[in-house]
């Protein structure tokens, strides 16, 4: 079991307690026939990701994950869903035909096999450092010095997205 079991038992337990529901919810998300349910399963995955960030010591990213993903993007998706179609109960027309689904599953499984082989091959047994907490000010300093240009570019990107969405969503 040395592949999946690291040194710190409590943290490992925490990892699996979080990871298992995440994977389950992710699987439900891609298989459920109800679009709103899918969005709610996505919430579970996103909260799980946030918890994993905590385990990785990325406190600020975790809070951001909650604020932006759960508080905003999911709400946006729910709006989108309700604006287009959000039946209660099952919706027949959400999946592609079975052959394509099987092909998709095949692709996913092969991809996972290859990736997990590569990951285990390359990083087997690598322990994360015990002290991995990154204080906010380090993140901040990095953004406002090294990554200043991407930061400003982000604002332009957001502006472009906004204008694009307004142009698209409104027909003049």
């Amino acid at each position: 079991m040395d592949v999946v079991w690291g040194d710190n038992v409590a943290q490992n337990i925490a990892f699996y307690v979080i990871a298992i529901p995440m994977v389950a919810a992710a699987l439900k998300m891609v298989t459920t026939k109800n679009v709103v349910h899918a969005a709610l399963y996505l919430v579970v995955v996103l909260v799980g990701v946030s918890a994993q960030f905590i385990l990785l010591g990325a406190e600020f990213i975790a809070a951001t994950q909650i604020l932006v993903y759960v508080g905003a993007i999911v709400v946006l998706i729910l709006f989108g869903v309700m604006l287009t179609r959000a039946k209660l109960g099952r919706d027949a027309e959400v999946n592609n035909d079975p052959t394509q689904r099987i092909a998709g599953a095949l692709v996913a499984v092969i991809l996972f096999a290859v990736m997990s082989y590569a990951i285990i091959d390359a990083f087997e047994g690598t322990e994360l450092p015990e002290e991995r907490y990154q204080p906010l000010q380090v993140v901040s300093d990095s953004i406002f010095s090294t990554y200043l240009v991407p930061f400003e570019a982000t604002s332009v990107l957001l502006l472009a997205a906004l204008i694009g969405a307004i142009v698209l969503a409104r027909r003049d």
Partner: protein
Amino acid sequence: MSEFLRSYLTIAIFGGLAVVLIGIILGAGRLLRPTRAQDQKYLTYESGADAVGDEWSQTQVRYYIFALLFVLFDVEAVFIFPWATRLEEYGMFGLIEMAIFIFILALGLLYAWRKKVLRWV
């Protein structure tokens, strides 16, 4: 590190606690409350009349733009917070950086305003 994780463990415990608390109360309620099934009780309420058309029908709420604006400004807030804690160190340079950032996003708000999509239709 473990202190850091512990504090979040506490938060997680609190989250769990809320669920357990409601579970207990609803469980207690189950013992107290009656359950007398009658079809009428499970009808959709629509001011006393039978629901017109489908009980549930799609709304066309067009505040999509509001939600979008919100997402984008939320992202902005995410960048503002780390900046705000460190402004003293960054000084004037940091201030200008952020002023540009805010200005560019405010342009977006202005654009939405001018395009008259800031209306609840």
